[in-house]
């Protein structure tokens, strides 16, 4: 018994001595004092030096997208560091292209604020805010996809463009020992500024999807921040709209369609929804209703793995087959795609073959 107590006390004591030394070193060696931070040649901040640029910006309520929470593994938190960031670290190089390196782009989670620093970030990021939203609806759309409707706190609003995304924080829970942020496209209409709707597909072992699918309940509070993203609907172009999605990729497309309805945008639109079997389709009735409500809208679900038992009378095969069939010319058209990397690559190729210029094919790609 005595041995256990002595061992515990000794280990605690030795750890405490080292912890004390490290704290002391952090206060002295690691203390860089107050540092000037300039953003976009416009806004000046005085910040406490020594932390990463990402956490310094978060302290100033400026949110940079970061799915891994600053561990240098997602490569999302890119900002232009024009002065004072030090050399590019080997941990950043795998995430930066040569063009980005030449353009002084850095991963803000790896770059430390140690001297006067000057950075450039998109103006929209100043719009990004953090919200503690309440879960209003959490329902199954398919066996693996849930619809999550969140209500923002009283008096708070979110301003976003249809197609953009937010980040949802997965807190610590049993089986998850780290807080992570994951990006999800917004499915609600931009006009509904008090709510956020998301479609979240279950990924086995996924920290955030497990949180939503297995732990979250109606009435719970979740932490989100946003909006982010340069994939959004062009209100002004006047072109015919080709929308393509698979699985949870439906979210930004839904937001675009809701926006078209709310704003009474009278443009021809076609929505190709790719799935494997009828069980993977959802919101079919909703899209059918939209066909009546929107100016000239057609919903074209396409199934790739149907058998005779399914009694499916709609389109079959991959989405590009349906595009081949219905898209006759490329004149005055633009396209919005959302889905996995492979689907996006195939669709971009198919649309370009049809003559749609690459710059008019917008996409939101996810893993």
């Amino acid at each position: 018994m005595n041995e256990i107590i002595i061992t515990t006390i000794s280990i605690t004591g030795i750890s405490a001595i080292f912890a004390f030394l490290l704290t002391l070193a952090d206060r002295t060696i690691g203390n860089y004092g107050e540092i000037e931070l300039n953003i976009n040649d416009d806004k000046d901040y005085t910040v406490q030096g020594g932390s990463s640029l990402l956490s310094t910006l978060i302290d100033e309520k400026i949110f940079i997208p970061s799915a891994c929470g600053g561990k240098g593994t997602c490569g999302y938190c890119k900002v232009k560091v024009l002065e004072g960031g030090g050399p590019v670290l080997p941990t950043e190089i795998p995430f930066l292209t040569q063009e980005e390196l030449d353009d002084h782009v850095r991963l803000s989670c790896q770059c430390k604020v140690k001297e006067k620093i000057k950075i450039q970030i998109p103006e929209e990021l100043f719009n990004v805010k953090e919200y503690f939203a309440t879960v209003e609806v959490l329902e199954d759309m398919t066996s693996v996809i849930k619809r999550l409707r969140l209500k923002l706190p009283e008096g708070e609003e979110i301003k976003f463009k249809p197609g953009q995304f937010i980040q949802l924080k997965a807190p610590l829970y049993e089986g998850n020992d780290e807080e992570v942020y994951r990006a999800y496209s917004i499915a609600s209409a931009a006009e509904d500024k008090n709510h956020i709707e998301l479609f979240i597909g279950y990924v086995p072992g996924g920290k955030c999807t497990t949180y939503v699918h297995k732990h979250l309940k109606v009435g719970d509070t979740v932490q989100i921040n946003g909006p982010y993203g340069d994939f959004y609907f062009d209100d002004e172009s006047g072109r015919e709209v080709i929308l393509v999605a698979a699985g949870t990729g439906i979210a930004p497309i839904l937001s675009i369609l809701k926006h078209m309805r709310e704003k009474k945008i009278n443009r021809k639109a076609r929505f190709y929804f790719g799935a494997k079997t009828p069980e993977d389709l959802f919101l079919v009735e909703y899209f059918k209703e939209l066909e009546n409500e929107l100016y000239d809208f057609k919903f074209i679900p396409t199934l790739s793995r149907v058998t005779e038992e399914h009694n499916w009378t709609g389109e079959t095969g991959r989405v590009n087959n349906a595009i081949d069939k219905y898209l006759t010319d490329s004149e005055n058209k633009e396209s919005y795609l959302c889905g996995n990397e492979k689907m996006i690559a195939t669709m971009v190729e198919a649309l370009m073959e049809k003559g749609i210029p690459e710059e008019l094919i917008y996409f939101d790609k996810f893993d």
Partner: protein
Amino acid sequence: MIELNPFIIFFAAIFTNNMIFSNFLGMCSYIAVSREIPTSLGLGQAVTFVLTCTTIINYLIYHYALLPLGLDYLRFIVFIISIAAFVQLLEMFVERYLPNLYYALGIFLPLITVNCAILGVSLFMIIRNYNFLQSIGFSIGSGIGWTLAIVALAGIRQKLKKASIPKGLEGPGITLIITGLMALAFIGFSGIVQIQ
């Protein structure tokens, strides 16, 4: 045991009892960071420095705190804590006062915390009953021996870039085979002196 001269231990730790080739310690960073000579040399220097400092710290902790209090059975955990804390302190110091070295080594410093050669040397020093000077000779020699091994491997791997290697053996596969061949070559030194 015959009282060995610290210099003999120093040379033996480099050649006859090389940490990599005779004990296979510190293999993960040895394989992962041996693609280029400059980076492996950087890591080797950092390992040698940390190894020497932590061996001294651990020697003092063991002989002046753990042994007198009858707590020598705690050496594993205490050595791990002291190595981790030292590397963290060192990282803070280098980052603040030697920025150029930090940018050259910064990425490798945290890696060193989990380099088992560092813990291995501290434990061998206890098992083999080395005195203070012998421990220092052993730690510096082990660090240099580890550096020699990783730099030699990096040199071979740079040459190998131009070789056509069967697909399945590329990367760590061929590296382990080369390490085995190098270990065989180092057996040639083993007749000179043995320290264990």
